[in-house]
């Protein structure tokens, strides 16, 4: 991947980011006036006006926008209203949690899907294949909020072996990871199975057999690498989704990630937090896309030339 290619990508990403941030600026202001939320219902008009002036909300929307745009360009995302700290500091505390949660869940899902999907493909049509099919269909279709609540009910309330929610040692990660694992796992098994069946029927697999390669080598060395591309594509998409936070899962388990921060930020009309979160997530997604492209090229040499 050439440097000019990277620059081109970065330029497009910057353009998209500008459009995204602009729409974010206007959309968060549609959620309502933070002053009404933060001051008591019986606060005087003077107090309300004073707070508006302090937050800069008294000026025209356009003036606010230009001021804000200038700050963003100098990477100043303003103060969080709720946390009373620079918004980006708060975001950068939550982001690593989300990234780690997503990365663990996806890495496990990807690995498990490769193994299960390959086994299903090798035994296509047999009872193992059918078993894997039922399991993966179920995993792909179960809603994560349901899985989260059932997990809490079973492991935290009934068996009392896992915490209901919160944050701390590894034990707090088990249920969120399990919930985020299910859907990617189910989806990826189906994809790996399909592309493996195709690869196993390819002529180069016959060549490998004719060369004397035994079944394990044929499946995992010759067929699998050819079958990986679709799975990598989908994993990249899922990673981009997860970068925005495990949404419901973070809320259900009170997991201090970017998803929960973003939802709280919207509910609390904490404009700076919402904007900084969106910015950080967009940058992460850009990086993920670049990484996926690089991974592509390292898996399939034909991609490098095009």
């Amino acid at each position: 991947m050439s440097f000019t290619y990277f620059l081109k990508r970065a330029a497009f990403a910057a353009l998209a980011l500008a459009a995204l941030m602009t729409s974010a600026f206007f959309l968060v202001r549609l959620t309502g006036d933070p002053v009404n939320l933060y001051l008591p219902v019986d606060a005087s008009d003077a107090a309300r006006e004073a707070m508006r002036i302090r937050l800069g909300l008294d000026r025209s929307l356009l003036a606010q926008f230009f001021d804000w745009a200038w700050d963003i360009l100098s990477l100043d995302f303003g103060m969080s209203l709720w946390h009373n700290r620079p918004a980006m500091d708060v975001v950068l505390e939550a982001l690593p949690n989300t990234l780690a949660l997503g990365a663990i869940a996806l890495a496990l899902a990807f690995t498990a899907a490769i193994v299960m999907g390959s086994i299903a493909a090798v035994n296509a049509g047999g009872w193992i294949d059918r078993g894997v099919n039922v399991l993966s269909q179920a995993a792909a279709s179960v809603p994560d909020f349901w899985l989260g609540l059932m997990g809490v009910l079973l492991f935290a309330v009934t068996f009392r072996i896992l915490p209901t929610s919160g944050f701390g040692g590894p034990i707090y990660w088990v249920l969120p990871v399990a919930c985020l694992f299910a859907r990617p796992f189910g989806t990826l098994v189906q994809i790996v199975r399909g592309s493996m069946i195709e690869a196993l029927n390819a002529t180069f697999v016959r060549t490998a057999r004719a060369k004397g390669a035994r079944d394990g080598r044929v499946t995992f060395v010759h067929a699998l690498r050819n079958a990986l591309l679709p799975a990598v594509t989908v994993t990249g998409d899922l990673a981009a989704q997860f970068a925005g936070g495990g949404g419901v899962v973070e809320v259900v388990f009170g997991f201090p990630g970017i998803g929960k921060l973003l939802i709280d930020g919207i509910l609390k009309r904490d404009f700076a937090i919402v904007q900084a979160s969106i910015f950080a997530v967009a940058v992460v997604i850009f990086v993920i896309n670049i990484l996926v492209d690089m991974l592509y090229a390292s898996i399939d040499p034909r991609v490098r030339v095009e």
Partner: protein
Amino acid sequence: MALLEVEDLQVSFDTASGRIFALNGVSFSLERGEVLALLGESGSGKSVTASAIMDLVPNPPGAIDRGSIRFDGAELLKLSRNERRDLCGNRIALIFQDALAALNPVYPVGWQIAEMYRIHGRNPEGGVEKAVIDLLTAIGIPDPERRARQYPHEFSGGMRQRIMIAMAVALEPDVIIADEPTTALDVTIQAQVVDLLATIRKRSDAGMIFITHDLGVVAELADRVAVMYAGRIVETANVFELFEDARHPYSVGLLASQPRVDTDEDELVPIPGSAPNPVALPSGCAFRTRCPRAERLCAEVIPPLETVGPGRQAACHFPVLTA
């Protein structure tokens, strides 16, 4: 004892339209140092024969119903799956038709050739790397050190086929099966690949089975020819006898339908009709529906492959006899 002996081989496939008998009792033998051409049109069972020898018949839907394949005294059909694999590549090698599809697109060609040594635990003198470079040099790939690191899509069609050939001959197998190795190539490149195969046969004493429908290539490379039709061998003869004095009406038709430079005939005579539907083969001789010499007996009795001269056989009730 012949190097490779195939006897009464029957292979069938389950398909949506019924059970297809791809091979209906194929018998032939191959001697060391001999090039046997399996000649026939598409669907006649040439490639299935190669698959059966290499244990590449997909099961299901395919199955070897009966017959025997003896290689160097051992009955292959009685060996275990892994024993068969150990022979493949090592002692019996297969060259595929379409090298672009047959080479793995995601591994460098040098790696794919080296894999031959690695799978079979061979340690050539000077190391695997050197053996690969030597092979690439021998098959006429310029700049082999650099080319070994490149991927199949970076080579021309002719070069890819040479690499397939290099891979097949890497471990100096006893039997080389070439399944239409020149079909996917244009004419000048075909000639180069045929030359390469001719060089290889001169240098080694391996037996070679050359699967083709191209009479020109047969004339150039083969010692003996087995003509296949609808899953049977209908005639075997040495290559001169076949061209001069074919006995089976199908062989005669096949020769008349292709242009030749050694005769004055300038008219090509196609064989009437088309290859029979494998789900419902005609009774008796499968060729009778297209045969100008067919009589009632042909519909009733399958003609056995009988000796019709020294070292030659034909399966026909009314063989062509040119005096």
